[in-house]
């Protein structure tokens, strides 16, 4: 069985007429890196919130590691397996020092203090913030704050992290730091990653991209396939990364260019 199984899910917010999600089916394997793209209101965030039981489907089921999210008994089991990181790092940090912040989750699990210490240190190491234990979070940059928020999730030893536009409020440096961290956690630590983003360039490393529009999944495929489908991308109100756009243009002018996803690959293909 897959780590996450979404089966025939509909979701309707109270007092709204249109479904936020309809007929959604998606299986996510352990260790995958999935990106979800779609315009505002396409259902991305609703889908994300179903994954750690912030919402429960109106119709259909969500299973995480076999646990059905509609069963209230499973809520805490699922939340330990699937951690969420949100857009604004300032809203996610609660303590006066970095280590207290990261320790917040493990402390709630009532672990012995030496285990908490070990988890905190290891999590900070994993997000590249080792040595910042006693820093006050408010003195850190946006990218650093967001990595602390990620460390707080990692300290719960989740199987999967869901990140809902984690780089939207960051500057280019902060974005790079956070992306690098996410990639590391996926590739080296084997954590399943589900990344929701409006930055198309951030999705090119994923194993698969899910395109959403009007509450439905319009396509699921690897990045090179998704970004060849210009009609799909345009109709979903999205963009194609610049390197891919240029490669497509060059190709339609008769140049032989292999599939490329980023600037480096395009330059190599042309030289």
């Amino acid at each position, binding site marked *: 069985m897959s780590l996450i199984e979404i089966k025939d899910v509909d979701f309707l917010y109270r007092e709204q007429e249109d479904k936020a999600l309809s007929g959604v089916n998606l299986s996510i394997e352990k260790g995958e890196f999935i990106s979800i793209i*779609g315009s505002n209101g396409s259902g991305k965030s609703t889908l994300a919130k179903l994954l750690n039981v912030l919402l429960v489907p109106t119709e259909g089921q969500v299973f995480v590691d076999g646990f059905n999210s509609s069963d209230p008994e499973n809520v805490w089991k699922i939340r330990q397996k699937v951690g969420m990181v949100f857009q604004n790092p300032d809203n996610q940090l609660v303590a006066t020092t970095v280590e207290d912040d990261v320790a917040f989750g493990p402390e709630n699990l009532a672990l012995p203090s030496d285990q908490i210490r070990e988890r905190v240190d290891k999590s900070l190491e994993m997000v590249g913030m080792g040595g910042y234990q006693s820093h006050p979070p408010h003195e850190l940059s946006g990218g650093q704050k967001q990595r602390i928020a990620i460390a707080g999730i990692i300290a719960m030893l989740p199987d999967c992290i869901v990140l809902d536009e984690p780089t939207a409020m960051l500057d280019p*440096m902060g974005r790079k730091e956070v992306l690098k961290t996410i990639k590391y956690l996926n590739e080296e630590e084997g954590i399943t990653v589900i990344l929701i983003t409006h930055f198309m360039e951030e999705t090119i490393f994923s194993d698969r991209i899910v395109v959403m529009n009007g509450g439905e999944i319009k396509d699921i495929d690897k990045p090179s396939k998704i970004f060849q489908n210009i009609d799909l991308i345009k109709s979903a*109100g999205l963009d194609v990364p610049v390197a891919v756009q240029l490669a497509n243009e060059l190709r339609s002018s008769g140049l032989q260019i292999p599939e490329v996803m980023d600037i480096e690959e395009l*330059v190599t293909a042309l*030289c």
Partner: protein
Amino acid sequence: MLVELKDITHVYNQYNPTVALKDINLSISEQEFIGLIGHTGSGKSTLVQLLNGLIEPTSGTVLYNNEDIFSDKKRLKFIRQKVGLVFQYPEHQLFEESIYEDVAFGPKNLGLKKEEIKNRVKESLELVGLDYEKFKDRSPFNLSGGQQRRVAIAGVLALKPEILILDEPSAGLDPNGRNNLLELLKYLHQDINITIILISHRMEEIAKLATRVIVMDEGRIVLDGSPAEVFSEEKRLRELDLDLPAVTSILHKLNSKGVSVRTDIFDVIEAKDEIISKLQEKNIPEEKRSC
């Protein structure tokens, strides 16, 4: 000259001094579209807050139409109306029950007559592409993020500014919302003749819209020129932790690998034409094609 900054230095927090701006001299003429870039903490936001008198510099003068804006504090209200500032995430500042009331807030504070307020609200909403009759009575809180941001910008436009300063106006918008917003800025600049200062981390936006690019680092202006001039300084920009527009970056990389293409191009189609023509030239001696 519309705005002039003369020998500006600004220091935050006299007890633990942080120099935010140092020796700034800058002139902005009517109808420029300035792209202001620099990494976080380089002084961009301090600079623009000075332009509309939110911050008084530690030393130096800010001139608006040759008038020292701090010489008569009572005139600051007028300056702030002429130099409109749209903060980051301006939709967080929406607060009224209806879109009409929200946009009318500024004009009301100017003490304008009812009829004039209505005209301005109507005009501003249409400028940002929101139909007056359809939207005026709706709550601003039931709009999409992109629409909320338009309402916030309409609120500033209702003051009839000569300069519009926007701090990261496309942050957090989806690709459609972003493109619509950029179209709006282009329209305000080209058709309504508003002088614009755009702060953005997205170099594509700057390259596409700005007539002049100003780069800041550690409180100083370090580069100032046309987009083509500034983005040709690849090495310098990298040192400053700044990106190049993706298209320009590709062209620079091709150049360094021996395909000599122009690098003052920001548009995908133009870049395609340039690459194709240069590769064809190069193709003539077929055996020498590799680089």
